[in-house]
């Protein structure tokens, strides 16, 4: 039977078929649904770990215990987990360990574009790259066998387009690997697993030798294959880009690489001999191209196919035509001639973050922020966040700024999930090194940005089981913070008061702005009404950036369907022209 699965659903199904017993991840678009789907199979223990490094260590532990394990993360998550990756490369595994890494070319939901094929090369581990959901399913099993046979973690690279496209998958459980029911015994092996210098020095040659063996495997493995066609042009490509190449060059000879590291040197040399012109089509970095040029082979690559941005078939057609690789001209098309106002993402109606940012704006605070839904506080009209880089950075950055003596109302800010991910350590730093920063934690009791995953503060696990709710206030006090306030972000005056006091106190202070995510609680209140007589269109309510509030000719109006009834507009209206229904 065939079923339509997203790439991410297919990875999870592949894990189930391959007898994976543990799957761990921290959420991150576009990887989130992989482990979320693993949790639907009762043979897999699945967890949300607090961050990617932890998830990789957990999966590595399961593999050390001799069982098959999976770990998934978005591309920047690999930066967080890199230390563990490099160590796991040295120690090797026992049970298979597959790491599914999701890159995000085009930055649909990310702060940067990075090509994590670099990590395979860097950490000297093999990497596979499927081109559709069927391959996504199959490659998990291939990766786990490779992992066990070559004693190495194996990375599977996916991209947003593969993870979030739905394509056909053969559903067949008959060859499923049934995980062992026996309790595993941990096999002690100090020289292999204790990476003190003397042991690590002995492991490094093992890793280099392993890489040679894997390079030999790459020459014969069936997922590296040549699709013969017209030898005028020979294309080397991988992943979803292969699909685009098939659309644009339907008759070309193609070398489709399913194993993208290490690369098959001889296969590429032979391929180059066979075709007249060698064309490398790869998204982001010139990984194949650099390798191929080092072999001394002339080829067409990044001078035609851009290094930045996401590819699509139109782009490949356009640039290929311009470079003379295609004869037929692409269709002439045009964007609209009228101005189309952009539609950026916004804080949802009813979102507690809005009240908080309105208060911070009124205080004219400089906010060193972080990543989450609350990053939308940086968008106009609120425009109340002033740095956002990578997860956990907000608190460390504000400490550095404060230590330099900057006095313009500095505040560090991050969310509950981000706090558990990497916000605790910079807080320890501030408390330890006599910092003075004011630290705001937006506690909406969920990991909202990536689709409401549970976290240590939400009281529930990925498997739906109740968990001890880790209370942020208790954690913070346990670390030694003395000045701690919990506020409702909709009580704007109260928020302003505690933040101002915190800033002026000259000691570290923590403000927990707690309001459960309304998308999750689905809580709705009656819609306020606008007294059209009193409203003079002053525009104050428009400054909170709430989508349902619309500026009209003479007064504002509130869209009944969109409005969540949070009442922030009632609070901010200086003329009392917006009223809660019960006040009428």
């Amino acid at each position, binding site marked *: 039977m*065939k079923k*339509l699965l997203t790439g991410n659903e297919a990875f999870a199904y592949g894990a189930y078929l391959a007898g994976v017993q543990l799957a761990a991840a921290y959420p991150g*678009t*576009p990887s989130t649904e992989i482990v979320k789907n693993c949790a639907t199979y009762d043979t897999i223990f699945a967890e949300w770990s607090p961050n990617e490094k932890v998830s990789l260590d957990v999966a590595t532990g399961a593999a050390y215990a001799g069982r098959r394990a999976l770990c998934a993360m978005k591309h920047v998550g690999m930066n967080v987990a890199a230390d563990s990756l490099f160590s796991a490369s040295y120690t090797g595994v026992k049970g298979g360990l597959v790491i599914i890494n999701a890159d995000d070319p085009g930055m*649909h*939901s990310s702060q940067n574009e990075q090509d994590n094929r670099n990590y395979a090369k860097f950490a000297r581990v093999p990497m596979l790259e499927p081109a*559709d959901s069927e391959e996504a399913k199959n490659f998990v099993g291939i990766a786990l066998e490779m992992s066990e046979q070559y004693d190495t973690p194996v990375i599977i690279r996916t991209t947003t*387009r593969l993870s*979030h*496209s*739905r*394509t*056909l998958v053969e559903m067949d459980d008959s060859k499923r690997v049934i995980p062992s029911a026996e309790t595993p015994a941990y096999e002690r092996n100090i020289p292999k697993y204790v990476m003190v210098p003397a042991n690590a020095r002995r492991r490094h040659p093992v890793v280099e030798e392993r890489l040679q063996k894997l390079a030999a495997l790459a020459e014969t493995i069936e997922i590296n294959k040549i699709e013969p066609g017209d030898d005028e042009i020979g294309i080397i490509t991988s992943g*979803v880009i292969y*699909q*685009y190449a*098939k*659309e644009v060059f339907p008759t070309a000879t193609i070398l489709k690489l399913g194993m993208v590291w290490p690369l098959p040197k001889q296969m590429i040399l032979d391929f180059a001999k066979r075709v007249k012109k060698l064309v490398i089509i790869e998204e982001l970095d010139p990984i194949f191209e650099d390798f191929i040029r080092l072999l001394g082979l002339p080829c067409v690559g990044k001078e035609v196919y851009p290094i930045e941005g996401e590819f*699509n*078939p*139109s782009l490949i*057609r356009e640039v290929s035509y311009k470079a003379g690789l295609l004869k037929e001209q*692409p*269709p*002439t*098309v*045009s*964007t*609209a*001639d*009228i*101005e*189309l*106002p*952009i*539609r*950026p*993402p*916004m*804080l*949802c109606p009813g979102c507690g973050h809005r009240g908080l940012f309105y208060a911070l704006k009124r205080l004219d605070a400089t906010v060193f922020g972080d990543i989450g*839904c609350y990053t*939308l506080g940086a*968008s*106009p*009209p609120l425009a109340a966040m002033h740095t956002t880089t990578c997860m956990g950075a907000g608190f460390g950055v504000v400490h550095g700024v404060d230590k330099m003596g900057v006095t313009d109302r500095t505040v560090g800010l991050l969310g509950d999930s981000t706090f558990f991910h990497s916000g605790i350590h910079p807080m320890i730093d501030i408390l330890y090194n006599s910092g003075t920063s004011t630290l705001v934690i937006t506690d909406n009791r969920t990991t909202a*940005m*990536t*689709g409401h995953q549970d976290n240590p503060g939400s009281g529930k696990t990925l498997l739906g089981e109740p968990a001890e709710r880790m209370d942020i206030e208790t954690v913070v006090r346990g670390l030694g913070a003395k000045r701690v306030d919990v506020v409702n972000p909709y009580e704007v005056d109260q928020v302003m008061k505690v933040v101002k006091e915190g800033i002026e106190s000259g000691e570290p202070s923590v403000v927990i702005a707690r309001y459960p995510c309304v998308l999750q609680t689905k809580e709705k209140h009656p819609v306020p009404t606008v007294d059209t007589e009193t409203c003079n269109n002053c*525009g104050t309510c*428009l400054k909170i*950036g709430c*989508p349902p*509030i*619309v*500026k009209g000719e003479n007064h504002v109006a509130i869209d009944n*369907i969109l409005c969540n009834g949070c009442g922030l507009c009632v609070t901010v209206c200086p003329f009392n022209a917006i009223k809660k229904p019960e006040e009428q």
Partner: protein
Amino acid sequence: MYNKIDFIIAGVGGQGTILASDILVEVGLHAGYDVKKSEVHGMSQRGGGVESQVRWGERVYSPLIEKGKADYLLGFEMLEAARWTEYLNPSSVVYVNRHKMYPPSVTTGQAEYPAETAIEHELSSRAGRYEWVDAMAAAKELGNPALAGVIMLGRLSADLDVEPETWLKVIAELVPAKLVELNKKAFITGRKMKKGV
């Protein structure tokens, strides 16, 4: 069977473009096509513009449609539809839900929402056929604005040679149990919107 049919669904996060495209791929599968679909998750779902692309064909490679090659554009929101002119060609068919959702620059008075006639002109001048669909109004009449997407699918279905039973079966499989009857009704409502039916 057609050699290929490429569909684009454009709307705003939260409007149900993902559900609609899920229905559309499943229907294609039931009709015997190879199918692929691509969609956007994450950040832009927070009220930003979202799009799904669905492809039916004998053999589909790319999950993304090429510019100038869309057969159908379904606009769940007027302004969002207007962003897809580059994907049209003189035989494309465009259906647009007569429904406006103002982006922040418009609600705050910094930009103007384009006139209906201007949007119609931009799209119809590049397509083979253009039709407004009063899906939002009909959905409200059925008591739930979220039904507009399925009404749009109903209108589309009247052009395609797939039995309505197939659509209804897929809808029943994909929408929450307590909303099945309402969604079926919405589908039929849309299907009847074809002129002359």
